[in-house]
């Protein structure tokens, strides 16, 4: 009887403990749980903004509401702030010129804490309150964007963000959704050109076991297929604190180069494990890992043979012939907290927010309307526009651009868009200064 009671008590305690621990794990990932619609800490891009700041004729009429959904809590929160900074600059510029078809742009923001369920709930709250946005930035990561698009599609609300999974580039399924940053396969042409020039025959990819990571791996597989370069991969769990097993698995396959996909602690663990193995393989950070502040996190000796991809047009040496980018930088620096955000994230991230509004405004001008369906239809016929308001593809979009069609809703980048350079620092203007070494 005593043994049964003891066993029962033990099972009860263990079971309760397991449930509680599950709650800790769940709460931990979204604990940070709030569904606030208020702005995050400090800096530019707090709640509504966007009245004209330049003294020209202000836009009048019912506001064009642009809802920004991002993560203002986790390790990527500063990037959300940077995108809002870009949106704010664009909104101010557009409003100063009379708004979007006469309507002043009003930016609102919500914090989804990288939780797609929270993002959907926040959007539903907005819609239920009658506060329907005209357009939305649906999270910026592939999981959240995918979760939101069904609702946005039903409501015919325009959506534009920097999510990178190829599955999102499906105009037949998501006619009102546009990407303003490259897909996971965006850098592939540049990487393929590099790999061929270096004579690489096999590429290894270490990536996170999530939607973005898996999409990244598939992009490399598909992008390099038929080129004579084979691709092998190993995934890691986001909770892993050591990547040695994954890298050992890849090392055993004798690749010529390693692609590093990840951000924050996982990115650090990958390089740490690479160094522990004494594996001095040329390593290329993908678009996600490239924005990680490597030089402030690891000593130079740990970053040997690591290269990051940078947009050629956003390097200091090339900025002179692009007055639009210079104006973006100066306007961003004029915003509260703008200089700090620029120096921390780089102008490339601010660009994402800036281009989002400029693209929608461009579409509205073509359509002479702010209706989501009209703008989407107009953007489908963008073709190869000239005198474009977005930035980052060269003075005349030499390296690609927002070349949307009825079958493609993502920017196109050619093989010259990216260069691969050693990890450097972002200067006060948000431009990337590499220490000179390039792959």
């Amino acid at each position: 009887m005593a043994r049964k009671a003891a066993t029962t008590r033990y099972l009860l305690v263990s079971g309760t403990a397991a449930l509680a621990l599950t709650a800790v794990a769940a709460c931990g990932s979204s604990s940070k749980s709030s569904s606030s619609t208020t702005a995050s800490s400090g800096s530019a891009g707090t709640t509504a903004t966007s009245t004209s700041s330049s003294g020209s004729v202000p836009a009048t009429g019912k506001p064009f509401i642009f809802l920004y959904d991002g993560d203002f809590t986790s390790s990527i929160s500063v990037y959300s702030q940077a995108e809002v900074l870009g949106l704010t600059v664009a909104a101010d510029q557009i409003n100063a010129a009379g708004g979007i078809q006469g309507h002043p742009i009003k930016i609102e923001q919500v914090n989804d804490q990288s939780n797609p369920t929270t993002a959907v709930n926040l959007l539903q709250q907005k819609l239920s309150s009658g506060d329907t946005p005209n357009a939305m930035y649906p999270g910026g990561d592939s999981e959240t964007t995918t979760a939101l698009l069904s609702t946005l599609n039903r409501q015919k609300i325009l959506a534009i963000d920097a999510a990178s999974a190829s599955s999102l580039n499906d105009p037949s399924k998501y006619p009102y959704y546009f990407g303003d940053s490259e897909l996971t396969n965006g850098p592939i042409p540049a990487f393929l050109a590099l790999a061929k020039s270096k004579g690489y025959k096999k590429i290894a990819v270490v990536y996170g076991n999530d939607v973005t990571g898996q999409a990244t791996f598939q992009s490399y597989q598909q992008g390099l297929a038929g080129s004579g370069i084979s691709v092998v991969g190993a995934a890691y769990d986001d909770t892993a604190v050591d990547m040695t097993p994954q890298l050992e698995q890849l090392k055993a396959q004798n690749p010529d180069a390693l692609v590093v996909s990840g951000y924050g602690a996982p990115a650090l663990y990958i390089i740490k494990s690479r160094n522990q193995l004494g594996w001095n393989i040329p390593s290329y950070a993908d678009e996600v890992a490239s924005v990680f502040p490597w030089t402030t996190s690891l000593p130079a000796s740990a970053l040997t043979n690591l290269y990051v991809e940078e947009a050629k047009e956003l390097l200091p040496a090339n900025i002179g012939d692009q007055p639009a980018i210079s104006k973006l930088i100066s306007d961003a620096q004029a915003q509260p907290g703008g200089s700090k955000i620029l120096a921390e994230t780089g102008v490339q991230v601010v660009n994402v927010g800036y281009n989002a509004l400029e693209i929608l405004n461009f579409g509205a001008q073509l359509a002479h309307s702010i209706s989501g369906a009209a703008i989407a239809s107009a953007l489908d016929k963008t073709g190869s526009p000239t005198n474009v308001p977005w930035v980052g593809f060269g003075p005349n979009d030499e390296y690609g651009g927002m070349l949307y069609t009825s079958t493609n809703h993502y920017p196109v980048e050619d093989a010259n868009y990216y260069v691969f350079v050693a990890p450097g620092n972002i200067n006060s203007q948000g431009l990337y200064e590499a220490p000179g070494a390039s792959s």
Partner: protein
Amino acid sequence: MTTVWAGLAIGALFSLVAIGYNVVLLASGVFNFAYAQLVMLGTYMTYVGLVTLHAPLLVGILFAGACVATIAVLEERLAIRPLTGRDDLQGTLITSIGVAIFLDGLVLKIWGSQPKTVPDPVSTKALHIFGGTVEPSDLILIVLVIVIALGLHLWSRFTPAGLASLAAAEDRDAAMARGVNVRRLTIAAFFVAGLVAGLLGVFVAARTYAVPSLGDNEALTGFVAIAIGGSGSQIGGLIGGFTVGLVNAFAARYFNADWPDIVVFGVLITVLLVLPRGIFGGAAERRV
């Protein structure tokens, strides 16, 4: 062999969490779910000591130990004692979860979400041992965790205070009736657990960096480690932690990222089916 060293290194982290759980469990019967967060705090306090305050290594380590021990004692006083006084041990599970969430939020608020690099206490040049590579700080962490677990095991079995703590965990009222100061033992247990987390922070951070997600990532696996090893057994926690680490590493090495969790929990279920009290869990006495 490198995979073995990797498994032992991450297993040492899991064992450390299991040791912390067991220290408090053995002394007070309380399951402190916030212990993994104390380990996380250990890395941040080390960062504060060595980077923010530019203290010498030993001073930084002692600083971290003192800080985390203090926070652990505060946790006992504010979140645990009010419920143990009412004999509500199940309630302490909930309050310790609350402490865990509070510490997660506090760390995020103070230090933000980017990982913090803590200076390595020893050389970062990997060692080649038995045909595999291991970082010196990982090797030290493995050895220290083993020494601490063995030391606590021997203390709990062969010292009067250790035996008193076992008695208090088994039957609090009976222990009090025999003159055991249960409250003092509980406070001491939290202090020791916090001290260990703080003192080892520099070696944990050398492996994981100071990251806010460390607590959440280690909490559940630490529980799995003591479930496999047997709750209340320091040796069991040690073996359980290393088992989980090795299984995790080999599954990741030879399969893919989907398998480590599946295999680890498969091992847990198998062990509990065969040995419900874990590998080193003691048999319950039966009155006849």
